[in-house]
């Protein structure tokens, strides 16, 4: 048996491969993105694709499963909000080949727009949910999920979270076993798969019967485990919460639930009899606690002590349960007094001049999700809403209808190329259809940036880097009926401002596309080739220390204190400095400087 250290996400990929999965689809989202990439890179037996969004990914997986293949869709927690329409009804029809939805939660919102607890989907959709706590379990639970799926004719959710998905540990692994279910479609099965009311009522009953069988199954499921030690306290827990609690209270007894829905009620009652007092330790919602209390089982502690928001950790579990007896480590310095190191747009990023232009125009910017969300931070502060993928466009339209003509010339929506494909096209069609106005700017940097460079329908490449068909954004704009579709070069601030101003003033929808402005980290697009000069430097004879260039928040530019004067005698308190190792020559700072003090330099 092979033993390797794997990231939780890579362990999911491995488990899927060994389970005989044939089709895997996903839309990238932290902390789930590595799963599909890992499948594409390592497991050629699996067809893998980046879908334009999670709903499509779920549909692709569902179709493959109905055709008899083992299939999966992976996504971050908010992705399931988009895919839920598929989930809630494929839960009725069931499947033929095993179907698994991998949902990666993000407690403490390391990189998300909310902190939802995906365990709730299982109860809502009436399907089983498994919760691994480390890479070994990611691997084993993923494999098991496909067996459960086929045995009970149900989709299965495997739910991870940041510290499971993005932590590495040892995995003992095996080999791939092909599924024995024959591929093929049977038209006679329409009553199972066509969810018209008459069929739904039949399947609705099947769902309840399935749930009863799953409840029985949970009682003997091998990953629901009792560990009886000191019986004065018994902890009911799951996933990474088990890991934290076991770490700080190894002496207690545990009921570790591998399957969080449905719950093994008899096993829980039996555990309750074996121990004196019960504590429930779970991250986020009181999911287990609510259910176990409803069984009439007395709980000593749960969410009265364990926080119901942010993530848990060994010290949070210890402090919550020990209360005043917790001995806090000595505070040597106050870390909150130290300068933070927030993420920033890269030097040379095309989003920087674009947001500078929007700020100068005084626009209210309906934003979206991507690297460009960083434009909310000072000193740029040029992005004013972020709700979900594609939301900026629809919100722009709603605001225009609320404000009427007063909003003309004042509002704009921005979103990335990947985000436009994900959920931006339909709200744009809505503006056209309902005779609205509003300017939508697609910050086309040729890739899904924030999550680490995943392909999408506009990049011209598949997940396996094969060249493929490519969506043309201008044609999409024209096709939904936008009459005014224009390109801008975001690196030309003056010209961009002029074009955006003209479009914002129009009482009709308009679409602006950033052209020739690829992500600085996207090597194949040769992002640096478009810059005339390799770098820029400060002419200290001319720099007046006005700090205007600091307003663009470039990581290459810093302030150097020191009284002095320019060559023509203007007094100054210091000058700026451009770090030659970081500057890529985008010229944005030089355009911002009023005193021609930023000039081309040589590498």
């Amino acid at each position, binding site marked *: 048996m092979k033993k390797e250290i794997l990231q939780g996400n890579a362990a999911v990929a491995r488990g899927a491969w060994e389970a005989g999965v044939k089709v895997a689809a996903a839309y990238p989202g932290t902390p789930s993105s590595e799963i599909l990439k890992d499948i594409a890179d390592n497991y050629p037996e699996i067809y893998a694709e980046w879908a334009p969004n999670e709903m499509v990914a779920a549909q692709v997986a569902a179709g493959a499963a109905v055709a008899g293949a083992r299939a999966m869709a992976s996504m971050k927690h908010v992705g399931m909000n988009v895919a839920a329409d598929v989930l809630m009804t494929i839960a009725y029809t069931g499947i033929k080949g095993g179907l698994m939805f991998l949902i990666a939660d993000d407690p403490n919102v390391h*990189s998300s727009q909310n902190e939802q607890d995906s365990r709730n989907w299982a109860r809502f959709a009436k399907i089983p949910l498994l919760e691994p706590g480390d890479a070994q379990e990611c691997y084993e639970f993923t494999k098991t999920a496909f067996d459960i799926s086929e045995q009970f004719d149900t989709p299965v959710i495997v739910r991870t979270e940041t510290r499971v998905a*993005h932590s590495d540990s040892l995995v003992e692994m095996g080999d791939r076993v092909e599924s024995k279910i024959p591929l093929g479609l049977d038209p006679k099965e329409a009553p199972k798969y066509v969810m018209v009311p008459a069929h739904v009522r039949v399947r609705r009953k099947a769902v309840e019967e399935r749930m009863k069988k799953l409840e029985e199954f949970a009682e003997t499921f091998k990953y629901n485990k009792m560990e009886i030690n000191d019986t004065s306290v018994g902890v009911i827990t799951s996933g990474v919460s088990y*890991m934290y609690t076991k770490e700080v209270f190894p002496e207690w007894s545990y009921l570790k639930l591998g399957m969080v829905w449905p719950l093994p009620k008899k096993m829980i009652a039996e555990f309750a009899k074996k121990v004196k007092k019960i504590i429930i330790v779970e991250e986020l919602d009181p999911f287990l606690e609510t259910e176990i209390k409803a069984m009439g089982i007395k709980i000593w502690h749960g969410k009265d002590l364990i926080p119901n928001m942010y993530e848990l950790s*060994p010290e949070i579990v210890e402090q919550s349960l020990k209360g005043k007896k917790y001995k806090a480590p*000595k505070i*040597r*310095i106050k*870390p909150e007094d130290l*300068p933070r190191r927030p993420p*920033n747009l890269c030097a040379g990023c095309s989003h920087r001049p674009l947001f500078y232009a929007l700020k100068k125009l005084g626009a209210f910017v309906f934003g979206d999700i991507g690297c460009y969300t960083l434009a909310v931070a000072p000193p740029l502060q040029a992005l004013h809403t972020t709700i979900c993928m594609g939301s900026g466009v629809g919100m722009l339209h709603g605001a225009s209808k609320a404000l009427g003509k007063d909003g003309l010339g004042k509002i704009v929506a921005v979103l990335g190329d990947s985000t436009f494909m994900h959920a931006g096209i339909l709200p744009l069609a809505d503006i056209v259809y309902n005779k609205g106005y509003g300017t939508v700017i697609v910050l086309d940097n040729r890739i899904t940036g924030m999550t680490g460079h995943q392909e999408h329908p506009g990049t011209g490449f598949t997940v396996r880097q094969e060249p493929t068909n490519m969506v043309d954004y201008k044609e999409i704009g024209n096709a939904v009926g936008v009459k005014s579709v224009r390109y801008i070069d975001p690196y030309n601030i003056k010209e961009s401002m002029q074009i955006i101003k003209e479009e914002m003033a129009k009482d009709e929808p308009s679409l602006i596309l950033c052209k020739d402005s690829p992500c600085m980290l996207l090597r194949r697009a040769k992002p640096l080739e478009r810059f005339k000069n390799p770098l820029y430097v400060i002419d200290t004879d001319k720099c007046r220390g006005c700090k205007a260039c600091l307003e663009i928040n470039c990581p290459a530019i810093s302030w150097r204190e020191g009284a002095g004067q320019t060559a023509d005698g203007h007094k100054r308190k210091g000058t700026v400095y451009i770090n030659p190792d970081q500057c890529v020559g985008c010229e944005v700072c030089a355009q911002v400087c009023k005193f021609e003090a930023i000039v081309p330099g040589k590498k």
Partner: protein
Amino acid sequence: MKDGKTTNIFLSGVGGQGAILASNILAEVFIKAGYDVKKAEVHGMAQRGGDVTTHFRFGKKVYSPLIKYGDVDYLLSFELLEAIRYINWVKPEGKIIINNQKILPPAVSLGQMEYPKDVVKVFKKYFKENVYAIDGQEIARKLGNIQAANVVLVGAFSNFFPEVKDEQFVDAIKSLLAPKLHDLNIKAFYEGKKAL
């Protein structure tokens, strides 16, 4: 690591400094030595200049992927500010290995805040002789590539584990890096080892 006790190593730095490679080398080495290993990284926006931390734990059986606050045995830090930020995490008897390098965060670049002064001195006040400052970047620059500073630090750090042979670190470096980078990084490892 004696008596089946878990050893906690906290790595910190700035995106692009190679903290992740360093933790991968440690993982290879301690797995080969027969330990259970867990490590947890914060991913996502590190490429965009943010801070990077890795919780690295090894022992007979490791449960939590995260080190308990205040339980760090070794703080291995690639940047001074990113070292002092985690000073409270270290046990009183813990050891600190710091790369003597400053990378200014935006608030300092923009002249709004000051970079913390005398980081190494502050550490020495609390941890006395258990503080080791290494000029990783200078050593790597002499070898021809400042990118190897991370492996210099791994070399220095290896002194704390005399039971692990140098060859095991060298094997891990070879298995994780492209062949053209082997020479440089193996030299960096040995120079780091000597530096402490």
